[in-house]
């Protein structure tokens, strides 16, 4: 995994979201989710290419149910974009890189 991507847990989630100086995109994923695996390499690329514009974090829903429940995640992959601690965009489902970047950028 790219060292630019932060691994989030129930314990660290709030603190990381609050203290992020850039918008933070959080990928809610799990090992058993095929579409999640498909967008993983795309997020790795974005973490490198878009480091100036936004940061990326990943939360494994399997071991961090509380955060997933708090944000009503019922389908994965779900990407939540946080700005100043608030959710400003919710992207559900795997999509090609161009489409993902477009939706993220539109909400930065």
């Amino acid at each position, binding site marked *: 995994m790219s060292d630019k991507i932060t691994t989030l847990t129930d314990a660290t989630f709030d603190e990381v979201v609050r203290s992020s100086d850039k918008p933070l995109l959080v990928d809610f994923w799990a090992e058993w*989710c*095929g*579409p999640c695996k498909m967008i993983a390499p795309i997020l790795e690329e974005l973490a490198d290419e878009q480091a100036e514009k936004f940061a990326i974090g990943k939360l494994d829903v399997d071991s961090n149910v509380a955060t997933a429940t708090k944000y009503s995640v019922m389908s994965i992959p779900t990407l939540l974009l946080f700005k100043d601690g608030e959710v400003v965009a919710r992207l559900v489902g*795997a999509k*090609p890189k161009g489409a993902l970047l477009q939706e993220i950028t539109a909400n930065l």
Partner: protein
Amino acid sequence: MTHTRVLIVGSGPAGLTAAIYTARAQLSPLVIEGEPSSTTDQPGGQLMLTTDIENFPGFPEALTGPELMARMREQAARFGAELRVSKVQRLDVTSRPFRAWLTDDEEPSVTADAVILATGARSLMMGVPGEERLLSHGLSTCATCDGFFFRGHDIAVVGGGDSALEEALFLTRFASSVTVVHRRDALRASKIMQERAFANEKITFAWNSQVLEVLGEDRVNGLRLRDTVSGEERTLAVTGVFVAIGHIPNTTLVAGSVELEENGYVRTGLGSFTSVEGLFAAGDVQDHVYRQAITSAGSGCVAAIDAERWLEAQGL
């Protein structure tokens, strides 16, 4: 622009088997795999959303759909097939060489002497009120992706075929109860799946039940059903709904230029030949009867051999 002798559109079992065979026949096939998505319209196709595959010969210990597809892909690549994660936006099969566009550009991205169409089929939606609004808010088309979130819930699976029962059985790992909602009084599913479902105490059946509406404001809280015999309406209280009611073939790329069956599937005569010379079809885009990983792979092999012989006869 690239020219290829064989262009394969789709990367399910049909597309990848066609790739293995045409690659081994030294035809250097180009496979346009599709793009990431959470639907079946993705590289690997419908099997990417399935769990265990127990009936693919040669794998007695079962393997998952994504694993099987990864192996097929690796095998195709090993023999020199070029695989591209991209989507064919437009395909012109009205004159040869055929032309395919992967972008919005005016110029085609690829020209091909022969095309093997292996675009598969996608899940049907119910088309009832509430369905679109509640998608991913309790309504799902992918049990393997979303089942986890229904731990302890009472949920429904709509459909009566193998995929519906496979989903229902998988979902019993998480849900408290699973009601299979089916419009008839008997299942289309195979005997072994039926037996497993009947034996599972978490699974019950709502027979002769047509779904009229998915209920709930911002989260699913029920299904409104009509009894197809008595006409009576009732509400089934569930907090999750999984839809598995059947498939439609992905024929948009060739609409209007190739003959289709009355039900919309691409018509193939002997083998994989379509009404357009040089265009071959394999897998679920032309098969509404068997629709198995193994039959799809078989028909991919048929298309590869048909295409190879046809190219040879054309001197291409």
